């Protein structure tokens, strides 16, 4: 769920701005989905591993 800063957009017209806002809304929706769904799995896996005394390896277990 990384946020990406918008590119320079000072002089874009209204239609382009609308398209940009729709793209941004879509990205926020994906971030929200990622937090709720993937994040839920990650948090559960972390707690399970923690309960077993194992280490959650962020470079291996994040997308396992």
């Amino acid at each position, binding site marked *: *769920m*990384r*946020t*990406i*800063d*918008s590119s*320079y*957009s*000072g*002089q874009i017209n209204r239609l382009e*701005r609308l398209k*940009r*806002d729709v793209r*941004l*809304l879509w*990205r*926020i929706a994906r*971030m*929200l989905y*990622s*937090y709720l769904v*993937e*994040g839920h799995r*990650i*948090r559960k896996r*972390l707690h399970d*591993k*923690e309960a077993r005394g194992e*280490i*959650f*390896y*962020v*470079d*291996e277990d*994040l997308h396992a």
Partner: protein
Amino acid sequence: MRVKNPPPAKYAFGYKRPPQSGNAINGLNEPEKRRARHVFHNATGESLPWDALDEFFSQINVWGVVKHMLANVWQMRRQEGPVAPQQVQVDDPAAMARDIKQVAKNLGAGIVGITEIFDEALYEGHEVPYKYAIVIGLSMDRSEMEHVPHERAAVEVMRAYREVSRIAIELSEHIRDMGWPARAYGNPNSTDILHIPLAINAGLGELGKHGSMISKEYGSNFRLATVLTDLPLAVDAPVDIGVQDLCATCQRCVLDCPPQAIFPTKQIVRGEEKWYVDFDKCIMYFTKTYGCAICIEVCPWSEPGRGSWLMETLLAKRKP
């Protein structure tokens, strides 16, 4: 304040293959001057060595933090926009600087300073087409921050980031309405600029032992956002409020840091001697505790109403 029973610096997560040390990325012990590189909370889209932990931090964070973060992403669409065709002429940059600071304060800013943009305040590989930086500081709710390291404090940090970003956005819109280009930079995710060096150069405070800025008004209990612009403005000078005198002997943040990440003496970082926090030690505890913030809250400067007294006392001690 003292933190009661912080969680131990033991972790149920980690790297199987540790990435390049964040201290190396930050330039610890490098004698040559160079610009900073992104290491964490990077919003440029570039792939970085600590990305996995950064993503893990986002995914395990609490909903109260994520809610403010998403709202902040949405409002940042207004960080740039159309510039009014009619340009307000500026004959007196000092008067304009006063006006802009007043506008920022009317929007809710606590402290405001202005500086020219300089090389060390830009990340490596990043340039900005502006001359001035208006740096805005907003205090956090101390009653929430007293709960560090806890999710209540984490939520308050992100709320303050969202609010100070809003102020920067609305100030940038005000400047664009005057016919001058302006772009707001929020936090915590970084792209082009480093807010703290800009804030220090803009006279908002000094770098403290805990690696954060200390201001006279709020200590370190605040968050920053910045507006870059070409609007002609008189700049502020860096200040000496006695922070170096206090940090030279005070050990509060060093002793209270559970992972012992704060160096007790200044280090050479990218060719400069400065206070420095061990990234590799700090970031694990930071992640475990949703952003920690112990060091900034235990700092004596962060005690409400104490800043002016500390400054006067420390500066008076220097007199022969």
